């Protein structure tokens, strides 16, 4: 089996479990929408504040949801010795990484699509220029999923992982938050051309950490 086929196998497994567990639909999406409501309570909804800071609020919410997603992605492997069977399946470590990160990215993209509707409806945001917006979102999501999966396996098997992963992950993805927010701002009301350098930065981040993940996943899975 090729690397891509193996990765698709792992991603398919994770996505099938998630589809049957319905946790995204029943818990994570409502969580995201509640956070949007809370932002409106915390900030002034009348004077256009929400509209102005919507990109930042959107990406903060995505990061919070990603932390939940990472935690789920690795709690799947924690029970019934699933991690041992994954390790002994003969699948390439790089493929397992790509599969798990891919599944996480797909879930995040679904979440982001629904959250975008929430932002448009609740915060009155108009999406002026879609191409940089979509490409920036995809690149940022791949970057978050790759780093998240990397730290997820790093902390797998550690009792304090629920608190450890945010402390490790959030500073590393600080440039992603910055790039994604700026590219959204430029796509919404600024000059769409300003978004492209940020999209490029997000792309570099994604490629770099997918590469590191493919290299580092095998030894980390072995030790977890």
């Amino acid at each position: 089996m090729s690397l891509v086929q193996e990765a698709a196998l792992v991603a398919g497994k994770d996505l099938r479990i998630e589809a049957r567990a319905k946790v995204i639909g029943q818990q994570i999406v409502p969580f995201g929408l509640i956070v949007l409501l809370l932002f409106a309570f915390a900030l002034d909804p009348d004077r256009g504040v929400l509209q102005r800071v919507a990109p930042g609020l959107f990406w903060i919410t995505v990061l919070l949801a990603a932390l939940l997603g990472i935690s789920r992605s690795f709690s799947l492997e924690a029970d019934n010795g699933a991690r041992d069977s994954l390790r002994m399946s003969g699948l390439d470590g790089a493929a397992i990484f790509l599969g798990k990160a891919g599944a996480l990215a797909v879930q995040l993209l679904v979440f982001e699509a629904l959250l975008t509707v929430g932002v448009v409806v609740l915060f009155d945001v108009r999406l002026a220029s879609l191409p940089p917006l979509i490409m920036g979102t995809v690149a940022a999501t791949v970057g978050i999923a790759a780093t998240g999966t990397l730290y997820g396996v790093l902390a797998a098997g550690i009792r304090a992982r629920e608190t450890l992963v945010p402390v490790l992950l959030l500073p590393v993805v600080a440039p992603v938050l910055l790039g994604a927010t700026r590219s959204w701002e430029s796509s919404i009301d600024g000059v769409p051309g300003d978004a492209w350098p940020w999209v490029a930065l997000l792309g570099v981040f994604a490629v770099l950490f997918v590469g590191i993940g493919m290299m580092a996943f095998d030894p980390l899975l072995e030790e977890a």
Partner: protein
Amino acid sequence: MSIDRAALGGDRLMSPVLRRVFGVLALLAMGALTVIGLFVAPPDEVQGDAQRLMYIHVPAAWLAYLAFGVTALASGLYLWPRTRSLVWDRVAGASAELGVIFTGLTLLLGSLWGRPVWGVWWAWDARLVTTAVLFFLYLGYLALRQVPAALDVRAKRCAIAALIAFVDVPIVHFSVTWWRTLHQQATVFNSELDAQIHGTMALALWVGVLAFTLLYVYLLDLRYRLEVLEEDREERDLEAAIADRVHGGPPRETVGVNS
């Protein structure tokens, strides 16, 4: 489980005598820095005496970068199969601790200096933001080091985390610089750097860098030694707990070695 000392690498980085030499030299250099920085160097024309904070702020920042560089290098040496030794793991951990302390000190001193000179405790300057992110990156690394695990498991896990953090630093720096320069043109630091530096001021800075570097070497060795002693103690606790179980005594509370 008996730990083979030879496989773990040396008990110490340098002889106790050499460490003491570094300690004394660091102390002397610190004394010289105090005299030059407080009494010999003239007060700054614009900033007055507040500028004297720079004589420890700049060396602290230098030390933070040095320490994180050493952590990255040692982590790489641990991961490289030919040079794999717990010596490098301990060096990486000890150096990261020093790096976090001195990054924190850099931020604190900068803040104390910024209040009288800029009028604010904190500014969203690219360099400040990068340093803050750097601080949290390695704070996370130290949290990971605190997680109990078998020594080689912890070493590999932490080495990879240290290298991820190291790779991330230029991206953070680049993105933050880009972000701030897109919004505000001149950063506060530029005019600073172009300013003429008085001879004794430059001397104070160099003595500071020397003093802090000597202090780093001294503290690194001290922390390394402490790490070895901690490992020994954990092993002894474990052996005592096993002995208790074997001899039918009541199970004793002990520090877990495996998470």
